[in-house]
């Protein structure tokens, strides 16, 4: 890999403190990550360990309390189309059809009508929803909604796709299918993906690197490059070896706490 290049995303000593009336919450403490263009990074950890907070800082929805979040070396200031977010609960615009949801970004950025249509058609096809172009979100299944949400950020030229437990609410079959599709898109487009999950298996199936986080205060415990060949087979012995190691890393922390 090209170590010399500037990382697309860099998180430097980032901490995030939420102040409520009667308490302060250290959601994230001294986090450091550097992500290269085209990498597929999974964040994994128990709930409350700051995964969403970290993702939202990268998205620009939250500012770090201390430290810096950089994209291509410049500070991230607010949300931007170059960093698209895919939410667990889809957050589609219910009053827009599939077509108009996907066209929302291109339209907002002021692309001409013809160009918007061309872009939308391309990405509707990419996620296999051509037949549902005119359906409204409430008429779609969860898997289809999440396809629209993915197409929506891709159609907007996102370089980095941030996904917060995007498949967590889907049934196992749909989840596996979407994992395959996501990998396929990622491999063909050279996107950078930061993907939050609490499934070890999902992380190992998808990621180039698995970042393990631990709670209280939320921090990055370890950063694990996966050298497993793609396409990966969840039933292979190698896969299971890695799963065992990751599982130990995740649970060592709980063990310490209980002791």
């Amino acid at each position, binding site marked *: 890999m090209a170590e010399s290049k500037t990382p697309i995303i860099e998180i430097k000593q980032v901490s995030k403190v939420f102040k409520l009336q009667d308490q302060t919450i250290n959601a994230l403490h001294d986090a450091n990550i550097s992500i290269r263009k085209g990498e597929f990074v999974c964040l994994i950890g128990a709930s409350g360990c700051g995964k969403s907070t970290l993702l939202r800082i990268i998205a620009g929805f939250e500012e770090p309390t201390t430290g810096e979040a950089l994209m291509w070396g410049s500070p991230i200031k607010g949300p931007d*189309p170059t960093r698209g977010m895919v939410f667990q609960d889809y957050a589609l615009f219910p009053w827009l059809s599939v077509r108009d949801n996907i066209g929302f970004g291109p339209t907002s950025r002021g692309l001409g009508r013809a160009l918007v249509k061309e872009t939308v058609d391309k990405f509707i096809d990419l996620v296999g929803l051509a037949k549902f172009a005119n359906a409204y979100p409430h008429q779609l299944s969860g898997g289809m909604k999440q396809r629209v949400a993915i197409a929506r950020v891709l159609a907007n030229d996102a370089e980095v796709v941030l996904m917060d437990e995007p498949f967590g609410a889907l049934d196992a079959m749909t989840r596996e299918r979407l994992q395959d599709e996501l990998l396929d898109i990622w491999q063909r487009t050279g996107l950078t993906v930061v993907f939050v999950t609490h499934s070890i298996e999902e992380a190992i199936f998808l990621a180039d690197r698995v970042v393990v986080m631990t709670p209280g205060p939320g921090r990055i415990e370890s950063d694990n490059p996966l050298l497993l060949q793609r396409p990966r087979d969840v039933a292979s012995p190698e896969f299971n070896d890695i799963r065992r190691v990751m599982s130990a890393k995740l649970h060592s922390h709980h063990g310490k706490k209980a002791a």
Partner: protein
Amino acid sequence: MALVETVPPPAAVIIEKPVGKTPWARVKPMVLALIVPALLLAFWHVATTQRWTRLIPTPYEVGEYMIDFAVGGIYDDAFSGTLLTHLFASMGRVYGGFALAALFALPLGLMIGRIPTARMVLDPFLQVMRPIPVTAWLPLSMILFGLGPRSAFALVCLGAFYPILLNTVFGVRSVDPKLFEAASMLGCQGNAQFYKVVLPAALPSIFTGLRLGLGLAWFVIVVGEMTGVPQGLGAVIMDGRTLSRTELVICGMIIIGIAGYISDRIVVMIGNRLLAWSPTHHG
């Protein structure tokens, strides 16, 4: 590419309303809806023909009077053939007052919902004014606007105002915050979000407010027209009472009911078309 044909067949089913209903299934709602009115009519008929009460005319007499009221030619009194005149007078005030109320309540509601300062300035005042019933405004309205149509108009306007305002505020304030984040990461930020997120998201609530407001406008019209207007269905009802012409009172009531109902159905139809995207909005 594997991607293109990956729509899972079971998930791909769009929920549709069943087509090809049997004839019975189609008329059933209407039949069921007519049971209570039919029973009431039968009871009314029996009660009046059997002389259980002499205070109310029989349905037949009211029906006959309704025809005279509508087209004349039976009694030929001061009210014969004047139904449309009175109906249009009332409709003018209902829709006029309603439109004026919407004109004030919508922008005000959007402001209170979106701008914290506007909320802090206006909300306490409006909350105190709101419990004052329209009927309590009647005397003041008569002092301010005199005896006549302007007073009726003002009361209708006041009656329609609060439902529109409150539902607009509610709609604007309950937009899912995720949608703002989604819009801003897609490049729609600042004031553009008002038109592209707030307004459409609040539309179902706004619509509910308009529907309730229009219903209340019909509700208030009788009170409004008690202020000494010469024309209008409320005036007809008041005149009927003063002249002890109960059939006139009942005719007026029936017409207000039907006009209000038709008016509501039209609004609901517009709503269903405009809000086809909203799973919870089917009147």
